[in-house]
C-alpha cells in the first residue's frame, strides 16, 4: 500500500432543494470548508479540477469562472465529466497529476445546481445521459433503466420489495442525523404501504421501482484537496491516503449489456482494479459509501464490491450488516437516497464522508472500532462509468 497521494482537506455544502445562490456561491461553500479543513490558502494550491454534469449548467465552461471566484487563478484549471461520477473521476485525474509530479496540491471541486431547470426537464436530460439515438425515442428515463436491472435481479435472486424498502429505511436512519442531507425525515414501512393512498413512497415510478426507491435531486457542492506525501505531512495532522483507484466503462445501450441479474459491470470491474492496487480484499474494508441512486443499486453494489456473494446481497440488509454497528457499514451518512444526489458533487461528498470516518470525525454517524480502511463506489449514468476509490489512514 503506497502512501503517495493524500486527502488533506474535505468540504461539502448542505445538499438542498433550490439553492438560493449562483453556482459560484455554491462552489464556494464546499471550497471554504475544505480549505479551512486543510489549513491552507489559495497560494498553496497548484491546480484545480471542476466536475459537474454540464447539461444542468447554464454557464458554459464553468472551470475558469469558478477558479476565478475561488481565487485559484492564474493556476491551471479544467473540467471533468462522467455524469454522476464526475467528482470521482476528477479525483482520479488529480491523483494522476500529483503522482506524475506535475503538481503538489490539487483542488477537486464537484458541484451541481439541478434546480436551474424544472424536474421534467431534468428527467429528460437524465435520460439523455443514456443512448439518445436508439433508446430515448422509446421514452426512457433513469428510474426505468435501473428498474430493468431490478426486475431481472429480483426474478433471479429472490430479492423482494421489502428488501428494497429496508435499504431506504436504513438510509433514512442516517439521513435524519446528517445535517447536510436534503431529506432529514426517517422512513417507516408504512411509507411504502401501497394500500394507503397517502403513503408517500409507495407509488410506482418505473415498476418494480417506487417513489421511495429513488434518490432525491438536490443542489450541492463538494471539495477534496489532494497533496503529495511531502505536502501532506507538512500541512496535515491526519492525512488520509488514497490506496487504490479503479475505473471502468460499459456499453451505453441496454442491448449490449451482459446479464442484467448480475448488476452493473462497471462496479465489479472498477472494484477489482482498486482492490488490486491497494493490495487488499473486500474483507479489509471497514466502512463504505456506495452509489445508491436507487435502492436496487445499493444491493447490486454489495455484490460488485464483494461484500456479499453474487445473488446474496439481500442477506446484508436482512441481517442489518450494513448498519453502523454491522459487519460492513454502508452509506451511514444517508447515502444518495437521503443525503441527495447533486450529480457532479456526489463522489466528492462520498469521499468526504469516508475521510471523516477514517479520521474519527464523523460525529453521530461515526462507525465504531476506529475504521482504518474505507471505500467509495461512485457510478455514472446507468453503469456507463464506474469508479471505486479506496482510502486508508
Amino acid at each position, binding site marked *: 500500500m503506497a502512501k503517495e497521494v493524500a486527502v488533506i482537506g474535505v468540504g461539502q455544502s448542505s445538499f438542498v432543494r433550490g439553492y438560493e445562490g449562483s453556482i459560484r456561491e455554491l462552489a464556494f461553500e464546499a471550497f471554504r470548508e475544505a480549505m479551512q479543513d486543510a489549513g491552507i490558502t489559495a497560494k498553496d494550491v497548484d491546480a484545480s479540477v471542476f466536475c459537474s454534469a454540464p447539461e444542468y449548467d447554464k454557464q458554459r465552461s464553468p472551470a475558469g469562472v469558478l477558479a476565478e471566484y475561488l481565487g485559484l487563478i492564474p493556476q491551471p484549471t479544467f473540467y471533468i465529466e462522467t455524469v454522476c461520477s464526475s467528482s470521482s473521476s476528477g479525483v482520479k485525474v488529480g491523483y494522476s497529476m500529483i503522482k506524475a509530479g506535475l503538481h503538489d496540491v490539487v483542488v477537486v471541486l464537484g458541484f451541481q445546481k439541478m434546480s436551474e431547470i424544472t424536474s*421534467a*426537464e431534468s*428527467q*429528460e436530460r437524465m*435520460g*439523455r445521459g443514456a*443512448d*439518445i*439515438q*436508439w*433508446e*430515448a*425515442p*422509446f*421514452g*426512457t*428515463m433513469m*428510474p*426505468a433503466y435501473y*428498474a*430493468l*436491472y*431490478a*426486475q*431481472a435481479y429480483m*426474478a*433471479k435472486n429472490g430479492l423482494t420489495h421489502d428488501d428494497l424498502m429496508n435499504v431506504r429505511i436504513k438510509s433514512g436512519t442516517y439521513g435524519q442525523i446528517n445535517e447536510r442531507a436534503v431529506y432529514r425525515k426517517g422512513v417507516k414501512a408504512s411509507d411504502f404501504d401501497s394500500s394507503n393512498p397517502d403513503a408517500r413512497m409507495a*407509488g*410506482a*415510478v*418505473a*415498476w*418494480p*421501482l417506487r417513489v421511495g426507491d429513488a434518490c432525491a435531486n438536490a443542489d450541492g457542492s463538494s471539495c477534496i484537496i489532494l497533496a503529495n506525501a511531502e505536502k501532506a505531512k507538512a500541512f496535515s495532522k491526519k492525512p488520509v491516503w488514497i490506496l487504490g483507484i479503479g475505473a471502468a466503462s460499459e456499453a451505453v*445501450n*441496454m*442491448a*449490449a*449489456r451482459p446479464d*442484467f*441479474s448480475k448488476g452493473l459491470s462497471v462496479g465489479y470491474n472498477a472494484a477489482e482494479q482498486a482492490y488490486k492496487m491497494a493490495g487488499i480484499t473486500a474483507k479489509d474494508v471497514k466502512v463504505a459509501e456506495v452509489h445508491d441512486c436507487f435502492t436496487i443499486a445499493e444491493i447490486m453494489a454489495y455484490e460488485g464490491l464483494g461484500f456479499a456473494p453474487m445473488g446474496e446481497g439481500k442477506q446484508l440488509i436482512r441481517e442489518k450488516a450494513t448498519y453502523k454497528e454491522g459487519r460492513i457499514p454502508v452509506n451511514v451518512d444517508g447515502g444518495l437516497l437521503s443525503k441527495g444526489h447533486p450529480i457532479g458533487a456526489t463522489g466528492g461528498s462520498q469521499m468526504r464522508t469516508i475521510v471523516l470516518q477514517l479520521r474519527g470525525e464523523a460525529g453521530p454517524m461515526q462507525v465504531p472500532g476506529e475504521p482504518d480502511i474505507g471505500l467509495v463506489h461512485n457510478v455514472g449514468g446507468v453503469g456507463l462509468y464506474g469508479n471505486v476509490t479506496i482510502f486508508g489512514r
Partner: protein
Amino acid sequence: MGFDKFGRKSFTGMTKTAKFVDFLNEGKIEGTVCKQCGAKYFPPRSDCAACLSKDMDWFDMPKKGTLETFTTAYYAPFGFEKDCPYTMGVVDFGNNLKLFARVAGDLKPEDVKVGMDVSIKPLTYEDGQVSFEIIRA
C-alpha cells in the same frame, strides 16, 4: 426518410444508419454485420469497432427471443407523457444479440414475465413515426 422519423420522438437527425427507418417501413428490423470480420451489431452501426472496417451490410434480426427484463413506466420524460403507462424491455436472442424496445400495448403489465418467449415487429404510429416493438411470441 430521415432518422427524425424513428421512435415516438427522435433526438437524432442525421446518421449513416438512417436506412434502418426505410427498412422499418418495409416491415423489416435490421441490424448491421461487418463484411470484413463478421461482427454483428444491434442497434445498427455504420462502423466496426472490432476491426475498424467501414464496410457494413444489413441483416434481418432474429424473430424469436426471450424477454430478459422489463419495466413499466408510470412517469414519462417530457414529450412522452400521453403514452403512460408503457412497458419497455430487453430481448435476448442468444449469440450476443439483444434488443431494447417498448412492449406492445396489448400486453398487460401483469402478463409480462421475465424469461417469456417473445418476438418483435415494426410499428407505425398515428403521426407517421416508425418504430419496433416487442410482442408475445
